[in-house]
């Protein structure tokens, strides 16, 4: 275990930024936080989490895939992929680190998504353990330990120091470069902090939420549950839940006409939208109830069915905090899952 005193934190950031772009949660003027690039003097936010998740780093909201240039009867296809440089994402919470595993399942299984893979290979993740979980947190439901996040390096912040432990080769290489600013630290401070956080985790209101009623093979049992009608009755059909979600990974590919060619890009799509997965025959989900059900069945049934039982929710609580009508996966799990237990 290594440690860096908190008064050297800016020096640590500066050192990281010498070799790679450094991104971290930064406070916005309105009390929220978002990931931004560090530059001299940029303060690391104390916020529990950012409004948007860090999935943008690997799977940006919009991304050019290729370009076509036309000249006379010739069409030139331009590959816009470029070798990207190493970058560090600092301060990622346990839930969001886990979301990268889920995204990997989608983008790194054959056929691999080269755009995602490139960024993933160059991204170095420094996670940080939670100390002040919110009422909306339920990562424990998905087997995530908020005090022991994964990532290339795991960090714990105490009163006066940042404790750091490398988990991977990439992580060790990063810490080696920072050696001047680091000293040996004892595990005791970290253990004590973890114990303290665990006491709060034990008090979380959503602690009892379980996935028992969900998982692969449950399609038949859950699909026609009458509760979907009431749960989806007032859904606005906006994309807030999907866009703040760290694991939602659906996208659309579109062509933008530049006048003398085409930019083919992809952008996040939302299963809440009426035009989602529109096909030649029209739409396959005509009502908001069907679209709403799709989102939760995907996370709780279809995804685990196709991915060795892995649920595609990490309990970060963003949708709980941001849905305009406060309808969310917890309310769905309690209603649909609760029915099964009775």
């Amino acid at each position, binding site marked *: 275990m290594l440690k860096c005193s908190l008064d050297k934190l800016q020096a640590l950031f500066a050192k990281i930024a010498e070799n790679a772009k450094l991104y971290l949660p930064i406070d916005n003027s309105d009390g929220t936080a978002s990931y931004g690039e560090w530059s001299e003097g940029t303060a690391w936010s104390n916020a529990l989490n950012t409004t948007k998740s860090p999935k943008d780093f690997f799977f940006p909201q919009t991304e050019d895939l290729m370009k076509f240039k036309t000249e006379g009867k010739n069409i030139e296809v331009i590959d816009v992929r470029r070798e990207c440089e190493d970058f560090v994402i600092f301060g990622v919470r346990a839930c969001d680190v886990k979301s990268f595993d889920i995204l990997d399942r989608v983008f790194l299984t054959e056929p691999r998504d080269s755009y995602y893979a490139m960024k993933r290979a160059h991204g170095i993740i420094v996670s940080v353990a939670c100390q002040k979980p919110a009422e909306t947190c339920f990562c424990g439901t998905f087997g995530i330990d908020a005090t022991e996040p994964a990532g290339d390096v795991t960090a714990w912040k105490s009163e006066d120091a940042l404790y750091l432990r490398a988990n991977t080769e990439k992580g060790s290489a990063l810490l080696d470069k920072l050696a001047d600013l680091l000293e040996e630290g004892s595990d005791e401070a970290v253990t004590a902090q973890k114990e303290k956080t665990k006491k709060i985790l034990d*008090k979380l209101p959503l602690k009892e939420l379980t996935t028992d009623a969900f998982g692969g093979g449950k399609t038949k049992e859950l699909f026609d549950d009458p509760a979907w009608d009431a749960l989806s009755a007032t859904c606005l059909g906006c994309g807030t839940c999907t866009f703040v979600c760290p694991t939602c990974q659906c996208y659309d590919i579109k062509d933008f006409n530049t006048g003398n060619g085409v930019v083919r890009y992809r952008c996040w799509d939302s299963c809440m939208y009426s035009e989602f997965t529109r096909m030649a025959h029209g739409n396959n989900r005509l009502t908001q109830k069907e679209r709403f059900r799709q989102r939760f069945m995907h996370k709780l049934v279809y995804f685990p069915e196709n991915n060795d039982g892995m649920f595609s929710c990490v309990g970060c609580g963003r949708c709980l905090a941001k849905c305009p009508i406060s309808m969310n996966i917890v309310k769905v799990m309690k209603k649909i899952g609760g029915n099964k237990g009775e």
Partner: protein
Amino acid sequence: MQKITREQLLEKACALLASGEVSCVLGWGAGEFGYDVTPTVFKTAEELKEGFVFGDFCGVNFSKYLVSKTQKLEGKILVFLKPCDTYSFNQLLTEHRFDREKVYAVGIPCEGMADIAKVKAIAGEGIVSIEAKGEKLLVTTLYEDAPVEIDAKDVLAERCVNCKSKKHVAYDELLGEEGDVLDSARFDEVARLEAMTPDERFAFWQNELSKCIRCNACRDACPACTCEKCVFDNPNSGVENKSPANSFEEKMFHIIRAFHVAGRCTDCGECSRVCPQNIPLHLLNRKFIKDINEFYGEYQAGAEVGARAPLVNYTTEDLEPGEVFDRRGENA
């Protein structure tokens, strides 16, 4: 904080269901933490008794739901309307967006709704429950041993701090006392933006609108946005986009939307309430309202059904475009 109680509303709803006057109730459903209230369709007295709540976090404007619900649900719908909601209700009726005969509207008084972000700023994170006690809110959090007591008036939502009216302009039945149209300071922030130089103002909106993630929540919650197929959802429109393709495109979306609802927006404030990025979208709409008031005389959309709104009416007194330009000189 609210003068009308859950029990009074529950009693009214159960009585109307029992008499057969209405077949369902559009009301507020209980959440997990006291503030995360979900608009809910209740069909029986049992459902109401189990899940219906009313309190300081019931800010959702139900009026827009009537457009779809009156088409889908059988029988009459009971809807509870706060004063500001009744303006949206009338505006939708003016635009023939739902069948008035299928709605039983109960006007309820409102003392202003709370903004959970303001509650968190005072009481801290980790809110597990909130209880109203007179003018106070008792906020229980994971991090304080005893509930934190805060003044409800300190956490009022912006739109309630600047409440424009406690008067109901539409209802079948009114519970509690009728209020008055109020003088509010709602245009102060617009005036502040108007006083900026064009560059400052551009920078302000550039900063705000660049936060947009194009979730469309503002549009989907807006009672003035009731097109069955929004131009931005229509793949044949040429402007359909699921993402902010660039910063110009993003500003275009919000500014076009503001133009589209100009003269019809009642300033209910739902757009800003639902924005996950806290963009003060209501300021765009208030700018139009302020301009309309200044150019054509005071006009409040939704104040009466069937009103000829200034932008869709012609009078010989209408001012000429040149006069609009003159008004601001170089800053126009």
